[in-house]
C-alpha cells in the first residue's frame, strides 16, 4: 500500500486520539507518544515532529493548556498538557463525528462490493 494514503488517513484522527489520551489525565510529550503507540498496537507510532505541532494547534484553539513542571530530585522539568472544558466538548463532538463517519465509510464500502 502507498504509505502516503495510510499517513493521510491517520492524520485525520490524530487530534481526537491525543485529546482522548489527555482526557484521562495531564500528560507530557514522550508519554503521549508511548501510550499512543502501545494502545494502538504500533499503528500510531508518532514522531515528535508530528505530535508537537498537533499539541500546539490544540493549545492555540483553547482545547488544551500546558504547564512546565518544577524539577524535583532526579526528575527534569517537563511540559504537561491538560484538556480544557472546551477540549472535552470538542472531543465528544469528534467521537460522534467519527462514529458517523466510520459507520458511513463501512456502509459505503459494503455498498460498493
Amino acid at each position, binding site marked *: 500500500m502507498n504509505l502516503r494514503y495510510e499517513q493521510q488517513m491517520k492524520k485525520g484522527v490524530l487530534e481526537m486520539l491525543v485529546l482522548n489520551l489527555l482526557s484521562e489525565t495531564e500528560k507530557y510529550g*514522550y508519554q503521549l*507518544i508511548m501510550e499512543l503507540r502501545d494502545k494502538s498496537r504500533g499503528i500510531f507510532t508518532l514522531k*515528535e*515532529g508530528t505530535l508537537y505541532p498537533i499539541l*500546539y494547534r490544540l493549545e492555540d484553539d483553547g482545547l488544551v493548556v500546558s504547564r512546565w513542571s518544577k524539577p524535583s530530585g532526579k526528575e527534569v522539568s517537563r*511540559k504537561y498538557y491538560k484538556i480544557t472544558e472546551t477540549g472535552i466538548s470538542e472531543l465528544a463532538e469528534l467521537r460522534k463525528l467519527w462514529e458517523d463517519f466510520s459507520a458511513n465509510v463501512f456502509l459505503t464500502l459494503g455498498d460498493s462490493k
Partner: protein
Amino acid sequence: MNRENYVKDVIKRLECSKKRRVEIGKELQTDIQSALEQGETWEDVSLRMGHPAAVASEFNENTAETEKKKYKTGRRVKVGLFAAGLLVLLCAVIYLILPKTFSLDKSKVFSQKEVTQQTEQIIMLLDQEKYSVIRDTYSDKRMQKALTDTVFQKAEQAVKHTGSYSKITSVYTVGMSQMGHQLAVVQMTALYRNSTVTYTITFNSNMKLSGLYMK
C-alpha cells in the same frame, strides 16, 4: 552527534517563530531525557527520532499555516531591515568618499583673495619662466618632486606658443573637501597675444600648490 548538537541542529531548521523554536528545543530535550530514563540509549533515541533534517522537515510540514506565515513575515522584515541598513551604510560611505564643493567666501581655511592672488602670481612666474621659484616657494613636497624641469619645459613650450601675456580674463574659484582634506581650486583664464590659456591650480590647506593644469 551528542544530544545538545542534535537538538540545535533540529531547531535551526525550523520554520517558526523564535519563541516556538525555543519551546520545541526544550520539549525535545525533555523527551530525550524521558526516553533515556525509560531505558533507551541515546543511539536508540536518535535512531527512532531520525536525522535532524527529517525531524525539522516533519515539524515544518505539520506546523500551522499561521505560524509559518508569521515566520516568513518576520524573516522578510529581518532581510528588509538588513538590506536597508546596508544601503544606508553604503550611502554614508559614498557620501564620505565623494568630494564635496563649497564656496571659498564662507571657508574658514581659505581666503578667496589670497587664493586668487597666489594663482595670478604663479601665472606671472610661469610667464617669466621662474620655475624654481614656483617649485621652491609655492609647492608642497609631492609637487616639488613632480614639477621637474622637464615638466616645466613642456609647460613653457605650451605657453610660449601663445605669445606674450596680456591679462587675466576670467577667474572661477571653488573649495573641495574629501575624506577630511580641503582644497581650493582656481580656474583662471589668461589672455596672451595669440591665444588664451586656462589654468586650473589647486592649493592645499597650507596654501601650497598641489595641482597645476593648463589648457
